[in-house]
């Protein structure tokens, strides 16, 4: 029971962050705050993925001082931290940055058109 509560603390943290982001997307009326909520949502998942790769007593996954393939080092792979989630999350971070850029550009155009960023005022002006 204690292991379930304390050993898996990365799950609790990421779920907590994700719900904060989700609440901001639904509960806030300003469009920029919704965008920030979406960002927190994405970053919480990225943090979770990075935390998967960690190992107790693992060292940095860089093979020292070899040119060539170094296949004989692979047999000790269990003592290195898993680098694959880090690499996957690089791509996810890039995707997040791209989405934020597009959303900010949209918000700029919305502000130029409607002169406000509150959702209820925009809905009223659209009618």
């Amino acid at each position, binding site marked *: 029971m204690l292991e379930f509560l304390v050993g898996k603390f990365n799950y609790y943290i990421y779920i907590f962050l994700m719900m904060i982001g989700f609440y901001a997307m639904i509960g806030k009326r300003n469009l920029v705050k919704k965008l920030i909520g979406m960002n927190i949502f994405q970053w919480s998942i990225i943090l979770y993925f990075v935390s998967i790769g960690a190992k107790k007593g693992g060292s940095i996954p*860089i093979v020292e001082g070899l040119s060539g393939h170094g296949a004989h080092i692979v047999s000790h792979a269990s003592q290195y931290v898993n680098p694959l989630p880090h690499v996957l999350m*690089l791509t996810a*971070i*890039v995707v997040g940055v791209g989405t934020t*850029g597009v959303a900010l*550009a949209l918000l*700029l155009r919305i502000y130029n058109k409607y002169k406000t960023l509150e959702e209820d005022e925009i809905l009223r002006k659209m009618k």
Partner: protein
Amino acid sequence: MIDKHESIIIKMISRILAPFVQLYALYVIMHGHTSPGGGFQGGVILGASFILLAIAFGIDEVKERFAERILTTFTSMGVFIYGFIGFVCFILGANFLDYGILPVVEPRGMGMLGIEIGVGITVMAVMVSIFYDLSTYE
């Protein structure tokens, strides 16, 4: 519009710092496969150096030196470097992006380096272009 900053300390310091930031960015790109770093990280730092200059000196000055058309060309150039290396690998007989077959010393390392340079250039151009678009307020 982002105007010139009034303080002379900021202008002097950013003018001195910008080349060092760019050098650090090149270092991060080059060392991508043996230390933390790589194309995307180095490209962001390289773009950040231009954004630093734009915040200190006003966006018009930076736009004079680094116009938007050239930025679009840089974006495409990065993707073409990537594609060129990929297609050279496939013309020489192996699969797409299979670096082992390139006729240089240390083919896998050099192939990865070329790809990272391409990615770095594209990311730098995209970061500066996003900054340009978001800071012009009409």
